């Protein structure tokens, strides 16, 4: 049929731009997401970080800098898990996935638009947090340290995208937020993102060194010169392993959904 070839398909580029813009607006207009993901790290930093900012917790490492790394890790992982988890769960709940499937939108464009949006939100979070730490917390480090911290935190967040997807497919639209909070907040505490691990109960101290956020956190702390348990290479290796695991779970959950809804 010649007509098929003549009409063809819409160009991918403009489609990706439109879709990304729509994904951005969807998240931006939900203050529960946009305000908390940008604002909460600032509030935590103001409450915990600023007061004792100038104290040295390790040789040549002031607490203000150390806690900045903690909050950078916390806020970026938070954006990844929430933006994916909640949007996937909500759209499943609204049966929006069904309509999208009937359109000529390639699924990869859809996925890519969400990744771009999430990375953008993560970058905005850092772009607000870093100056705040600079001015309010008096954090002074070499520009290369800011850059290393930002790039490590952004790259290391990929496993949490997969985790967000997995939660989005495994939980319902109303339970996704609760599930994420129940998983994310306790592991953030257990991984020492809010206060030193030495203050945690002993049994949690045993679990802590195996948590994904522990390795992710160490990438941040190492970037600002704080001592860590494992080498940076080991941290990346573990994070990659968790990434594969979360991705496998997400894929399994996605396929389970596919066979239920579309077979």
């Amino acid at each position, binding site marked *: 049929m010649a007509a098929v070839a003549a009409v063809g*398909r819409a160009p991918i580029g403009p489609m990706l731009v439109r879709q990304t813009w729509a994904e951005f607006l969807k998240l931006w207009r939900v203050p529960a997401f946009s305000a908390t993901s940008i604002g909460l790290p600032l509030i935590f930093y103001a409450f915990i970080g600023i007061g004792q900012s100038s104290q040295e917790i390790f040789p040549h490492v002031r607490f203000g800098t150390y806690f900045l790394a903690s909050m950078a890790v916390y806020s970026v992982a938070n954006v990844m898990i929430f933006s994916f988890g909640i949007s996937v769960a909500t759209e499943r709940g609204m049966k929006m996935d069904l309509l999208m499937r009937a359109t000529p939108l390639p699924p990869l464009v859809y996925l890519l638009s969400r990744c771009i949006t999430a990375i953008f939100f993560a970058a905005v979070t850092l772009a607000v947090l870093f100056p705040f730490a600079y001015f309010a917390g008096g954090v002074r480090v070499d520009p290369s340290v800011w850059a290393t911290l930002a790039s490590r935190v952004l790259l290391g967040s990929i496993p949490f995208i997969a985790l967000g997807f997995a939660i989005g497919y495994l939980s319902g639209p109303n339970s996704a937020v609760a599930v994420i909070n129940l998983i994310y907040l306790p592991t953030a505490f257990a991984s020492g993102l809010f206060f030193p691990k030495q203050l945690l109960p002993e049994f949690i101290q045993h679990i802590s060194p195996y948590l994904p956020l522990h390795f992710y956190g160490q990438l941040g702390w190492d970037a600002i010169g704080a001592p860590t348990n494992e080498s940076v290479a080991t941290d990346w290796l573990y994070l990659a392993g968790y990434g594969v695991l979360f991705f496998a779970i997400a894929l399994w959950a996605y396929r389970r959904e596919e066979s239920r809804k579309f077979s």
Partner: protein
Amino acid sequence: MTVAAQLVDATKKYGNVEALKGVSLNIELGEVVAILGPNGAGKTTSISILLGLRKPTSGKALLFGISPTDLKARSRVGVMLQESGVPAMLKVREIVDLFRSYYPKPMVADRAIAMAGLEEKANSLVKELSGGQRQRLYFALAVCGDPEVLFLDEPTVGMDVEGRRSFIERIAEFAKLGRTVVLTTHYLEEADQLAERVIVIDRGLVIADASPKEIKSKVAGKRVRFSATLTEKDLDGLPITTSTITDHTVQMFTNQPEAVLRELFKRGIEITELEVTGADLEDAFIALTTHKGPA
């Protein structure tokens, strides 16, 4: 004529339930087709298979001669599904623009919005729309790609009479552009107003495929209704096509109402509240989908 959409001996099982028991359809470019049937007849399953949203258990579906999951086929098709959601936090124009970007030759956004009668709501968030407006937004999203074929699955479900009437006019307006329209409905007057071809599906099978006029003529021309105390047995041998008995109300379709009544009187059956009327499409539909014998 070119075949736009095609089902070839499609069957579908959900577990042990046979939703489709071998349906074959050819829908040609330019046709306006209504797929009619009671709830659970297999209408939505047929549409879902035609659109590649469901896989047939056996048989196949084709859009423009290729697989309906092929994005080239989907680029020529607009879809309105039952109860599908759209993001609440986007504005009408934003989501129309988004859907336009999926299609190779979309219509301008204002035209799609106007076809759906949403001009005044173009800058409102989706969450601010009423149920009827939301339904019209789905219509705007279905037509904004300027598709050659428009699929509508029960587009007017849940609307009041006025809403349904004006919605049917919007669909007719789109069909007038020479486009193919396939809609499912269990509202018979919709099929009668819109379609030049009606496919009746019941219990997973096509039981009729003809123009609304032919469907009407296929069944008996007159509806006879009365109150009486009788059983199916009392109606044996009467020149009727179908009959239903609920409590004391008896309804039957026939081409010879006089002969039927004469015979009933001869058998000594007491009749009250007698009504003889011409069968409309609704009657035809009931007659076609009424199952004889022990259910």
